[in-house]
């Protein structure tokens, strides 16, 4: 039983993950740049003007990837958290902690660009649209997670408490989404949805996907950077940290 996990745990130990993450970061930044350049080029120069929304629709190329990422990161965060609770690996909690701020910022970008898109299209900065509302609630959930971890001094306890909150959140996110959606249709608010744009051309889809890849790579890169800092903060008094070349110099 234990033997099967040994290899796994070797990678899951902060000590071996720290240099590995260091090696991976430049690659992810490189990919971020490549996808970013291609994605932006498609979004501004290849994708045609939208028949209904004019040039204003180009916000979609960051709005949708940011929304996707904000939801996806929450799932990944909860998965790490659950893994940490189940297997008691130290790295899992650190990963969850490193992902949370990125997810919160993605939710913020999604809300911000949503408002800047809503103003010209619906004539108002904020509509109680199902998507916007659930994104706002997702943002609150991220803030709650970050605040809970920040309020607990003991790192291990913070990890575990955060893990439970993330898992509770993950059960609740779909419930919240559907309840808000239902509430929205009942009240017949402005439910202009992103994908309903009639002329959703193939190029737009490609632009969105490539921008999503860019956001993906960015999130991984920045989370790895943060997890490296967290590892050092938590493992301050261990021998291996003292023997690191960047500490010894």
């Amino acid at each position, binding site marked *: 039983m234990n033997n099967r996990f040994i290899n796994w745990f070797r990678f899951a130990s902060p000590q071996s993950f720290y240099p590995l993450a260091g090696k991976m970061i430049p690659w992810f930044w490189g990919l971020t740049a490549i996808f970013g350049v291609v994605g932006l080029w498609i979004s501004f120069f290849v994708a045609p003007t939208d028949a209904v929304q004019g040039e204003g629709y180009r916000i979609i190329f960051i709005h949708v990837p940011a929304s996707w990422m904000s939801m996806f990161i929450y799932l990944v965060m909860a998965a790490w958290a659950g893994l940490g*609770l189940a297997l008691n690996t130290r790295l899992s909690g650190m990963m969850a902690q490193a992902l949370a701020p990125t997810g919160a910022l993605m939710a913020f970008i999604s809300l911000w660009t949503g408002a800047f898109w809503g103003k010209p299209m619906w004539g108002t900065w904020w509509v109680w649209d199902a998507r916007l509302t659930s994104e706002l*609630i997702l943002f*609150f*959930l991220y*803030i*709650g997670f970050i*605040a*809970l971890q920040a*309020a*607990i001094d003991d790192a291990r*306890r913070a990890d*575990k*408490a955060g893990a*439970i*909150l993330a*898992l*509770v*959140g993950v*059960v*609740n996110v779909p*419930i*919240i989404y559907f*309840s*808000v959606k*239902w*509430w929205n249709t*009942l009240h017949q608010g402005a439910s202009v949805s992103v994908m309903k744009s009639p002329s959703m051309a193939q190029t737009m889809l490609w632009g969105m996907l490539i921008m999503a890849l860019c956001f993906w790579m960015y999130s991984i890169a920045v989370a790895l950077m943060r997890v490296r800092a967290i590892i050092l903060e938590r493992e301050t008094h261990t021998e291996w940290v003292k023997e690191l070349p960047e500490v010894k110099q």
Partner: protein
Amino acid sequence: MSALLAIVRRDLLIAMRRKSEVLTALFFFIIVVSLFPLGIGPEPALLKKIAPGILWVAALLSTMLSLNRLFATDHADGTLEQLVLSPTPLGLLVAGKIMAHWLTSGLPLVLLAPVLGLQFDLEPSALGVLVGALLLGTPLLSLIGSIGAALTLGVRGGGVLLSLLVLPLYIPALIFGAGAVEAHISGLGASGHLSLLAALLALAAFFAPWATTAALRISLE
């Protein structure tokens, strides 16, 4: 099972001896609900329309007030440690504590709501739906809230943090609870909302004690 009844009895007895805390949350509910007409204006049609939402939001806030002490007093005087070390499964004791919390904070709201609903000119049938929705919804609030209360136990700024964690999770209860009354008033029928609320309650009754138990063990470590 006798342990479950014992903890319910214990918490009710303590609440009886410390009536002021229960009453504070209750008066908070009454005052918040009564403030809205003063802020919005006395127009009956408008008040009737917003009444379900106001009553529900006030119920959420009033529950938040009492959630703080769900585990905090037991934690402070060391009896929580004794509960964890009791041979009775902790999940059962937690379920009992949640039940007692509902009896002292949720049930009074349910009983009081129709009286306050009269202030907003709700019809008797709408009041009935309101009571039904609160009857299904307030235990849900106690269940979800207990997770937050356990997570923030002994944490700096626990009270504010608790509302930050729990209020977003209360949104479905708010939507379906207030929605039930609105749907009834507009003639759509409240059964859909109420059955969804019941489904959520069943889900929470299954998962929340478990999550709370895990959170309590972590808090005590």
